[in-house]
């Protein structure tokens, strides 16, 4: 099993506009502007994905670039926008393979800008669709996700 990242789609709505993505986290009340390669990284974690494969896809060959991607995802994990999960690497084969164009692509850094000005007002829904077995406040998790990591 391999550690992977996946967007917390229960809590976050996102929309893409030209070269910028806007994320709104309904659990925390923070909203975000993603620029540079950040919208593409966000797109690549709509399904569970590893940093290695994301880096490959974005043409991020050196260690520094991969660390930049990892740091962005770690920030979004800390903000509950992204979840960490374990996945079977074999399941990823055939998915999110590097695009042909990616080989020639010049990696640009992801930019994540967080806005906290509405945070105390936007927090919603503590009893929304709770886990049917555990009850509130436990939300049902997608199969295979481990939020304790």
């Amino acid at each position, binding site marked *: 099993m391999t550690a992977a990242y996946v967007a917390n789609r229960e809590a976050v709505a996102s929309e893409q506009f030209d070269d910028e993505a806007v994320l709104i986290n309904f659990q925390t009340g923070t909203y975000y502007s993603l620029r540079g390669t950040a919208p593409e990284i966000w797109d690549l974690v709509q399904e569970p994905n590893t940093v290695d494969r994301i880096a490959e896809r974005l043409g991020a060959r050196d260690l520094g670039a991969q660390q930049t991607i990892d740091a962005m995802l770690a920030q979004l994990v800390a903000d509950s926008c992204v979840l960490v999960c374990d996945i079977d690497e074999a399941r990823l084969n055939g998915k999110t393979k590097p695009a042909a164009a990616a080989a020639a692509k010049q990696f640009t850094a992801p930019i994540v800008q967080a*806005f906290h000005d*509405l945070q105390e007002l936007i927090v919603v*829904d503590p*009893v929304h669709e709770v886990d049917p077995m555990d009850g509130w406040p436990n939300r049902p998790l997608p199969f295979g996700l481990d939020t304790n990591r």
Partner: protein
Amino acid sequence: MTKFSSAAVTRSEKIACLGVMLLDRAIEIADASQIATRTYRFGPLTVALQTAGREYSQRLTSAIDFACSKDCDAEAFRIIALDSTDPGVGSLPHSEYLRAYSRQLEQQFECRSVQLMMRYDAHGDIWRVASFARRLAVVWTADARRLPDWEIAAPLRDVLHWASIPTPWFLTHGAAIGAGDNGILFTGPGGSGKSTTTAAALLSGLRTGGDDFVLLDPIEREMHALYDSVRLDADGQQRLANFSAAVINPSRSATEKAQFRASAVRPNAFAPRLRLGAIVLPHLAQAEKTVVAPATQSEVMRALAPSTLLLLRGGQMETTAKLAALVRSTPGFRMELGRDPAEVALTLAGMMHGRFQ
């Protein structure tokens, strides 16, 4: 009395069950008391409202009277508004159970499996519950004489939002300002200058469809007024002293905003419907002159979506998608507001007469 004894029943299921019982009890009361039904049309959204108690009815509907229609509509979304102080209503059913969850329900409860929305307003002691499947909502207040000022200025807002979730139209946070039939949506967080600019626009001969929330019809590209009310904070009142005679809540508390009806300012000042030409993001700059510049779509989305979604609970994903589609299809502008509200209003008028170029 219903008892919850099974440990297997989750808290979510208990709340959903209480919501359904509240709906059922309200129907019993409305039918037994033969409460009159009044139809209200907000553009494409039609609701059939039954309110128990004359005083509650008056307080709840004064801001939406403009939308009252003589025609009945069998397809209308039904809303039953009950006041526990009314002799025909009585106390809230299962209140001991409901109150056990009141803290959580202040945020919002949404159960997709039974298509139920529920929210508790602690300030006004108001319970709201809606069922999409039954096209029915109930607003149950403990005492209509203690309604908070925003419930009088913008009544039934949650319920109107819930009623619009399964439709193409939606409520959005912003002021609708118009010249003739052309309008702009003026949007931004509280304190960005929406209400003061709306009032100044009225003084300058422009029109408004409300300063806080409007109903957007993205198909017809129209903004429909939900409330004939404009609210001014202390600063706005000072800058726009002309409105002091029109204020309808002169005995308000220090924390309440002054309210007035746009329709009372002058004939044709209130605009129930405006064509949407642009979205404008105000910013209090205190500059000599107002400056307008194009805004990116993501800027508009960041100004429009979070404040709309924090104030309207439930259906966040659907509303986000609708807002994004609106942003993509509508020109957006940043407006650095000058310190003179009249000059700001003139700039807005110029924008609208210039067809948003």
